């Protein structure tokens, strides 16, 4: 009331500058400045808060409680969104930097205004962050923190100092990596995008991106975020009912071209995004994302198939067709056809030497035994070339040959057989003599049956060269000489009947001979007759002899 024309910023500055002890004592001027400051803040926050019922903070005539209620209405949904954004930023801290950098290009003018807003917001965020670390105890914590916040902010609304304190406290967290102002800017934009507001067109690209990223983040942490969403739903006011399309983009909207340049910059989320491909404004479902993944893989494989294969996959590769020293890198496997040479160790040599010694002691050398080859066939008779004039005539030679052909048994003994016979006889004689000498018992001479004709010649004539005496003894014994049979009787001994018998026999014999002679003569005569022509000689009948 003291300064109605005072602007909100000035009011804030004024509040800032007052001493803290001065705030303890109630003063109307301070309260007025506080109200204007809070109004200003409210109006600043208004654009970010979706579906806030108040366009302006009504402070006239309202007591602290009512003012506080208005602020609460505004800030509750804000808080939830901020929480989400902070979580997202936690996961992707680089984005904040990039986003904030980009923002700097556009937002130099509004920086100052925003700074203060962000400080305020960040206070809330800081509180939230401190208390939101555990997802499981989300509900309780939220209630607690809200309760805490209310209490603290009650204090603040009365004194309007809590905010300052917290604002100052918030500054302590900042460091070179974490720029709170950048973070808050980013969060604002993302939030606006998420709730489908097109308020901040200048940051259009960023918004969309962040919104999408947030969407993806939401989907990744679906399970985790379910609680968040539910809680958010619970705690949202009736005006700010989140719809399906807020979280899951219902329609696939075309992306402005500026998006693509930024999307390349954000590599972290490219795992889920298609590389330079269509990115929907509304976000992708899990299934669609999987499909996209598959598609990308398929494309990769097709591309690989079209290209020529690597040299390891080809068949026979010569050195010229593969890169230099490439065979060294590859672990080649090939068969060794040769047995690896045995490593000679002392044990082996010792074992061999032991074996040798043992063999020598035993005398068991593996000498080659000569295989005596028995002649399978009888040795051929080598015909000797006779260089002497053959004693046989040619006819006899052929005769022998013919006999041998027709009747082998009757063939005369060949020369070799005769020699064999002679040799065997000589050997037998020799053996006989040696046996007689060596054996103790007597063995008589073997009888060789031999046929020979003996002439009846005086024996002495044959045996003696010079006969000293002449002997009548003949070679043959009397019985050998005698050629008769039957009983021999002398003349005196013969009886009458015998005599008669003998005479009759004699006569008969004589007669037979005579007849024979006669017939022979007759035959000769007839032959003569036939032979001599015209010579007819009559054979005298009866003949000369009767």
């Amino acid at each position: 009331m003291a300064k109605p024309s005072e602007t909100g910023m000035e009011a804030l500055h004024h509040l800032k500058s007052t001493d803290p002890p001065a705030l303890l004592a109630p003063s109307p001027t301070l309260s007025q400045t506080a109200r204007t400051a809070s109004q200003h803040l409210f109006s600043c926050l208004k654009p970010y808060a979706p579906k806030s019922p108040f366009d302006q903070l009504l402070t006239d005539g309202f007591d602290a409680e009512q003012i506080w209620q208005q602020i609460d209405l505004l800030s509750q949904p804000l808080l939830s969104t901020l929480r989400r954004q902070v979580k997202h930023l936690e996961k992707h801290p680089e984005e904040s930097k990039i986003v904030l950098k980009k923002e700097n290009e556009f937002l130099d003018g509004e920086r100052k205004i925003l700074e203060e807003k962000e400080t305020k917001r960040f206070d809330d965020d800081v509180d939230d962050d401190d208390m939101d670390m555990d997802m499981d105890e989300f509900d309780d914590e939220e209630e607690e923190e809200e309760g805490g916040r209310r209490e603290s902010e009650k204090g603040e609304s009365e004194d309007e100092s809590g905010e300052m304190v917290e604002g100052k406290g918030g500054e302590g967290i900042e460091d070179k990596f974490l720029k709170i102002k950048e973070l808050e800017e980013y969060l604002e934009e993302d939030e606006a995008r998420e709730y489908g507001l097109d308020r901040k067109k200048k940051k259009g690209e960023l918004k969309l991106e962040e919104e999408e990223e947030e969407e993806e983040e939401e989907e990744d942490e679906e399970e985790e975020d379910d609680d968040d969403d539910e809680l958010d739903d619970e705690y949202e006011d009736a005006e700010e009912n989140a719809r399906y399309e807020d979280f899951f983009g219902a329609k696939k909207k075309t992306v402005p071209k500026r998006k693509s340049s930024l999307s390349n910059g954000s590599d972290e989320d490219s795992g889920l995004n298609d590389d330079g491909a269509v990115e929907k404004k509304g976000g992708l479902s899990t299934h669609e994302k999987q499909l996209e993944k598959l598609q990308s893989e398929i494309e990769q494989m097709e591309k690989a198939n079209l290209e020529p294969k690597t040299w390891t996959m080809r068949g026979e590769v010569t050195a010229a067709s593969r890169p230099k020293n490439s065979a060294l890198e590859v672990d080649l496997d090939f068969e060794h056809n040769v047995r690896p040479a045995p490593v000679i160790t002392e044990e082996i040599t010792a074992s061999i030497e032991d074996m040798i010694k043992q063999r020598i002691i035993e005398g068991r050398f593996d000498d080659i035994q000569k295989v005596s080859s028995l002649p399978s066939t009888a040795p051929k008779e080598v015909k000797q070339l006779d260089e002497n004039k053959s004693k046989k005539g040619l006819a006899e030679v052929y005769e022998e040959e013919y006999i041998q052909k027709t009747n082998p048994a009757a063939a005369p003994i060949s020369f070799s057989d005769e020699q064999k016979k002679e040799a065997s006889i000589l050997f037998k004689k020799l053996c006989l003599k040696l046996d007689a000498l060596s054996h103790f018992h007597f063995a008589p001479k073997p009888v060789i049956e031999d046929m020979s004709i003996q002439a009846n010649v005086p024996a002495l004539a044959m045996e003696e060269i010079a006969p000293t005496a002449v002997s009548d003894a003949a070679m043959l014994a009397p019985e050998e000489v005698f050629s008769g049979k039957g009983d021999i009787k002398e003349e005196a001994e013969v009886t009458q009947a015998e005599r008669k018998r003998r005479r009759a026999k004699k006569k008969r014999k004589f007669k037979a001979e005579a007849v024979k002679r006669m017939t022979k003569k007759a035959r000769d005569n007839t032959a003569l007759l036939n032979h001599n022509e015209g010579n007819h000689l009559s054979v005298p009948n009866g003949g000369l002899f009767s």
Partner: protein
Amino acid sequence: MMQTGEAPASMEVEAIPNGLGIQSGSLPLKPKFEPLKAHEMSDGRVQFRNVSVPPHRYSPLKKAWMEIYTPIYEQMKVDIRMNLKGRKVELKTRSDTPDVSNLQKCADFVHAFMLGFDVVDAIALLRLDELFVESFEIKDVKTLRGEHLSRAIGRLSGKGGKTKFAIENATKTRIVIADTKIHILGSFQNIKIGRDSLCSLILGSPAGKVYSKLRQVAARLAETF
């Protein structure tokens, strides 16, 4: 001397009943003839063979006459006589010569003797049908003159005739080397082997080589029983 008035040996002609043969229209029956005797050949005339006697075989013929005469006259039934004036041996068929070839065999036999073969060897001609005499000269094989010729002849005979005897014994032939003429008596195959050996000797191969070949051949011949 020609035999006149002798009716030719039985020429039997089957009596053809006139009516039957002509009427039936069949061919007349073949007449049956017995084989001609040597005596009746050439229209019943006697056949002769003459074998001239070279001068160097004159006295050996005289010595061996009976050995020649006996088998010819007795077994072959061929008349043989010596024409002293013409220095020829004449052979003639008899009436009872059984076979036509006897005369030729006897002629061959006598001829072989004239060439220089022994009677005992030449007798084989009478006994075996398939024996032949082959003659050739050294100049047929290779033209040799002077000392080469003498050396060739010496090579053929060998020392004391041992090479010649070796060939004879191995191949069952008889060989006569008369100066530059060579006669071989034996069966066809044996003549061939003997001839090959002699030719190789003429051409200059040493006796040892010929012996080894002969040994192989003889062994092969002996195996073929």
